[in-house]
C-alpha cells in the first residue's frame, strides 16, 4: 500500500537519505532500524510532509503523496508520532484528541467514546483533563503522541520511538495494546525502535538504514544476523 522509491534528502552537505526504496504491505508491521542519525526519522518526515525530498517518489494507495499537503496526507490515512513529542499546546489531553478526530478523519465527526477508548488503551484516561504541554511526564507525552495519531483513525501508523524510556512491564503491555489495535482496525504500521526485542516481537519485516542507505530488508531474525547489521547497529548477536 505504501511504496517509497529512490528517495534522497540533503540538508546542506548532509546526505540524510540516499536513494532509499522500501514498501509496506497492507496489514504489515515494518520495523525501521539503524544507527543514530541513519535517516529513520527523516524518512518519516518525508512521508508525513514536514521535509521535502531532493529526489524520489512516494505513493500511498495510488496517491502520489509528495504532491499533497500535510493535512491531506492525514485524511488519506497516514498518521505519525514525533520522536520529540509535539503536543498541541494550550489544549488539554482530551482536546488534543478532539481536534485530531475532527480534522484527521475524512468525515470530520467527533466520537467521545472513541476518544475515551483510545485514552484508555494508552493509559492516559486519568490525565484526560491535564494540560497537554506542561503537565505530563516524558512517557506520558509519548503516549499522547500515539493517542493523537490513533484519533485520526489512520490506515498506516508511523511510530517513532514511542516505546523508548518505558519500563519493561509497561513496554510489554503497550506492545500488546498496539498489536490489539492493529488487529481491531486492521492497521499497517511502520515502527522505529532501538530495542531489538521490541522489533522482533512486533515486526513482520525490518528495513535497516545506515548512513542514509538501506543496507538490509527482510525477516527480522535473519536480518539481525546479517554481519553488516551486527557491526553497525546491534553490536552483538541477539539472543
Amino acid at each position, binding site marked *: 500500500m505504501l511504496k517509497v522509491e529512490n528517495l534522497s534528502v540533503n540538508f546542506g552537505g548532509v546526505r540524510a537519505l540516499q536513494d532509499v526504496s522500501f514498501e509496506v504491505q497492507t496489514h504489515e508491521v515494518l520495523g525501521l532500524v539503524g544507527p543514530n542519525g541513519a535517516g529513520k526519522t527523516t524518512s518519516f518526515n518525508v512521508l*508525513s*510532509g*514536514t521535509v521535502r525530498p531532493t529526489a524520489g517518489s512516494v505513493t500511498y494507495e495510488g496517491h502520489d503523496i509528495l504532491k499533497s*499537503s*500535510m*493535512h491531506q496526507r*492525514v*485524511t488519506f490515512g497516514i*498518521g*505519525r508520532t*514525533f520522536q520529540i513529542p*509535539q*503536543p*498541541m*499546546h*494550550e*489544549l488539554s489531553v482530551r*482536546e*488534543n484528541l*478532539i*481536534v*485530531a478526530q*475532527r*480534522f*484527521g*478523519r475524512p468525515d470530520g465527526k*467527533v466520537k467521545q467514546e472513541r476518544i475515551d477508548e483510545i485514552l484508555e488503551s494508552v493509559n492516559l484516561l486519568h490525565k484526560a483533563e491535564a494540560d497537554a*504541554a506542561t503537565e505530563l511526564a516524558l512517557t506520558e507525552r509519548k503516549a499522547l503522541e500515539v493517542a*493523537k*495519531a490513533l*484519533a*485520526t483513525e489512520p490506515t498506516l501508523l508511523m511510530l517513532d520511538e514511542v516505546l523508548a524510556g518505558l519500563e519493561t512491564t509497561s513496554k510489554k503491555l503497550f506492545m500488546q495494546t498496539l498489536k490489539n489495535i492493529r488487529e481491531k482496525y486492521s492497521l499497517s504500521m511502520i515502527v522505529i525502535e532501538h530495542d531489538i526485542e521490541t522489533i522482533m516481537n512486533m515486526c513482520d519485516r525490518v528495513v535497516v538504514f545506515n548512513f542514509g542507505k538501506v543496507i538490509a530488508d527482510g525477516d527480522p531474525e535473519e536480518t539481525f544476523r546479517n554481519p553488516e547489521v551486527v557491526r553497525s547497529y546491534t553490536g552483538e548477536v541477539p539472543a
Partner: protein
Amino acid sequence: MNIKISALMLGVMYLGVPFFLGDNDYLIGLVASALIIAGVAVAWALLGNLGGMVSFGHAAFFGVGAYTSAVLTMDYGVPVFVALVVGGVGASLSSIFMMPALRLRGPYFALAILAYAEIFKILATEATGLTGGAGGLLSIPSLPVFAGVDFGTKLGGYIVILNIVTLMLITYYFIRRSSYGLALKAMHDSELATRIVGVPATYLKVVMLLVSAFMTGAVGAFNAHYINFLEPDYAFSGTWTVFPIVAAIFGGYRTLSGPVLGALFIYLVDQLVFKNLIPQGHQLILGVMLAGMIILSPSGLLPVITNLFTRKKADNKRGEAQHA
C-alpha cells in the same frame, strides 16, 4: 463567567449609556470613539487569539475600509449603510495581498503586516485621483436617516458602532466555540502538531485574516462617516494599530469582552480623568498606568473584574497537599 460579563457589559452599553448619557453629545461621542477602538481591538484579538497571529498593521484594514466606503459614497452615491459593508469587503480583499505573509511567524508576520500598512498608506497618498492624496477627503457623508431615526447624530452613531461591535463579538463567540476555534487555539504554539493531525492550518489562517480584515474595515468605514474626514496619515495612522493592541492586551486579549473593556477603560480614563489632572502630557499617566497594570495583572483587566465578582473560590485547591 466571561459570557456573563459580556452580557452585562452589553446590557449597560445598550440601555444604561443611552439612558444616562443620551443627551450629552460629548460623553456619547467619547464612548463611541472608544468603541471604534474597541471594534478594531476585537478584530485584532480574533486574529491574535484564534489565529495566533499578532499583527502590527491593522491600520491597513482600517484605512482601506475607510477609503473604500468614503469614495463609494462620495463619488458613486452608494448608500452609507451599504458602503460600510462594502468597506469591510474592501479590507478583506486588500488582505488577499497579505496572504503570502501567512507563512511568516511571530514578529516576522507582525512586521510584514506593518510593512503592508505603510505601503497602503503611501499608495493612498500617491493615488491622488482616487483618494484626494495628502489633502484627503473632507465632508464625507454622515450616517443617514434610516427608518425615521437620524443616525447622523452622536447618539445615532453610537448605536450603530455598538451594533457593529456586538455583531463582531457574537461572530467571535461562535467561531471560538466551534471545533475550528479549538484547532485555531492549538495552532498558536504548535502549528506542526496540528497539521500532523490533519488541520488545514493555512486555510484556517486565511479565513481568520479575512474575517479580521473585514471587521476592521467595517469599523474604519464607520469612522470615516462618523468623523466625516479622511487623509492617509490619519486613516492609516499607527494609532489604529497601537491603541487597539494595547486595549486588547490590557483588557485580556484571550477573552471575549477583554478587548472591549480594555478600549473603553483606557480611552475613557485617559480622556475623562487623566486629561483633567494634567491637561498637557496626560499620556504620561496613561503610560504609567499601562506599565503598572500589566505588571500587577498580566492577564489583563478582565481577571481583576472577574475577581471582584467572585471574591473567593480558589482557596479550596490546597487540600491535597498533606499526604503523610
